[in-house]
């Protein structure tokens, strides 16, 4: 399943490394990355494939959220469909 991971927080060294390590450990494949700094906040959006993640999606979402809190970042994962529905005809 294709999903979008959004990472938002204060900019510092190593965020991309930490998040991609976390995703790699969960078997989540990163397909595309886009990143910017918005109003001093580091903002990263990743298109990922969760097919190799063995557990339920909700569990993955919770894992990312919890680990995100540990590193003082907001990490959320949502199925890509919602953005397609809202922004593409």
């Amino acid at each position, binding site marked *: 399943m294709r999903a979008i991971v959004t990472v938002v927080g204060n900019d510092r060294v190593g965020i991309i490394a930490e998040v991609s390590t976390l995703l790699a450990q969960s078997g989540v494949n990163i397909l595309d990355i886009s990143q910017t700094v918005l109003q001093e906040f580091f903002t990263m959006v990743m298109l990922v494939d969760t097919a190799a993640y063995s557990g339920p999606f909700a569990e993955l*979402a919770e894992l990312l959220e919890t680990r995100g809190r540990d590193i003082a970042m907001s990490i959320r994962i949502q*199925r890509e469909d919602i953005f397609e529905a809202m922004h593409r005809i």
Partner: protein
Amino acid sequence: MININEILETNDMIDNRHLDIRTITMGISLRDCAGSDAKVVADKIYDKVTKTAANLVKTGGDIEREFGIPIVNKRVSVTPIAMVAESCDTEDYTIFAHALDRAAKEIGVNFIGGFTALVHKGFTVGDTRLIRSIPRALAETERVCASVNVATTRAGINMDAVRMMGEVIKEAADLTSATGGFACAKLVVFANAVEDNPFMAGAFHGVGEPECVINVGVSGPGVVKVALEAAKGQPFDVVADTIKKTAFRVTRMGQLVAREASLRLGVPFGIVDLSLAPTPAEGDSVAEILEEMGLTSVGAHGTTAALALLNDAVKKGGVMASSHVGGLSGAFIPVSEDAGMIRAVQSGILTIEKLEAMTCVCSVGLDMIAVPGDTSAATISAIIADEAAIGVVNNKTTAVRIIPAPNMGVGDVVDFGGLLGTAPVMPVSGGFSDEFIARGGRIPAPLHSLRN
């Protein structure tokens, strides 16, 4: 790939502008639950609802989690109970309300709708019994919602039913005087009721509906308001276009969730209801959209025109985004559930008369309005008759959900808590309508040519 700004915009709508799916409502037919023994029928109703909707709340939660979009309510609507219970050998239908209430608690839905009778042309035995049972049924249960359809454009207005509903509303208020007449907040009197409405308190599973169906209600007044902030001072053409675009996006999301829920539950998808439904939360208000168009307060002159534009643009934008649109589809203006409406009533700018005018151009009608506790049954019936006339003549749904707040007068505030919010008690007209309501009979269906 979707670009980063689109993703951030969507999440901003969810996080900061109250974008949500307001309800996933499962409609369940109870026609196969009929029988002669009331206890057996009540058990059949309980069993069917709990079995059919067993996974509704869990599935809603899963979808919420995966898409990252809040689904505020999961609900159930059922076949009008007057039809299901009619074959029973009992006069008191409260037993069926208890069965529905227990079922709702078991499956974890916050409201279950369908304690309903459709009497626009006249009463069957079951209809009369159901209507008489409404006050107790609503007072003794927590989650059951009742509705009665008293008029249609094709049949006219059943004024006997209108009279009866004034009395029922008073009795329901008296039975729940300790909670500000809370039972009345769960009771809707309709003209031209729709069969696939997912919104409470007026949802029921119509007779033309399939065995089971998923209907979804979207919302998002906050999103529309923020979108309009960017069009400050622009002509109405721009305002209408902005609303259309926003409604399109919101509805696409509703369609996605509806399709997903239907797939996972193995139940056919019915409709998406394109409604702007406010909540008492700040920034989730229909009144504030109208004010954003340039009114200092909702209720000021211009409000009806603003609402007409809003209602029409929401439908135009939403209709292309969904394969099937239905339900009530339009802007809701429930006073107690909208922070902007409450403010306007308290400042004296928004009155019942203005609200009545507003109901000519938007979805539904006089909704969640508290009036003084000493308002007579005849006056309430007359308010219902006026509202029904608007619906019947204009070929649209109208409704009345009114609370004669026991022991309260103008200036007092009734607090229902949660999504139902707080209602400032509003004054009603000083005139009397007793003889008008006492007449009974039917107001004939209106002519539909020679329109002016």
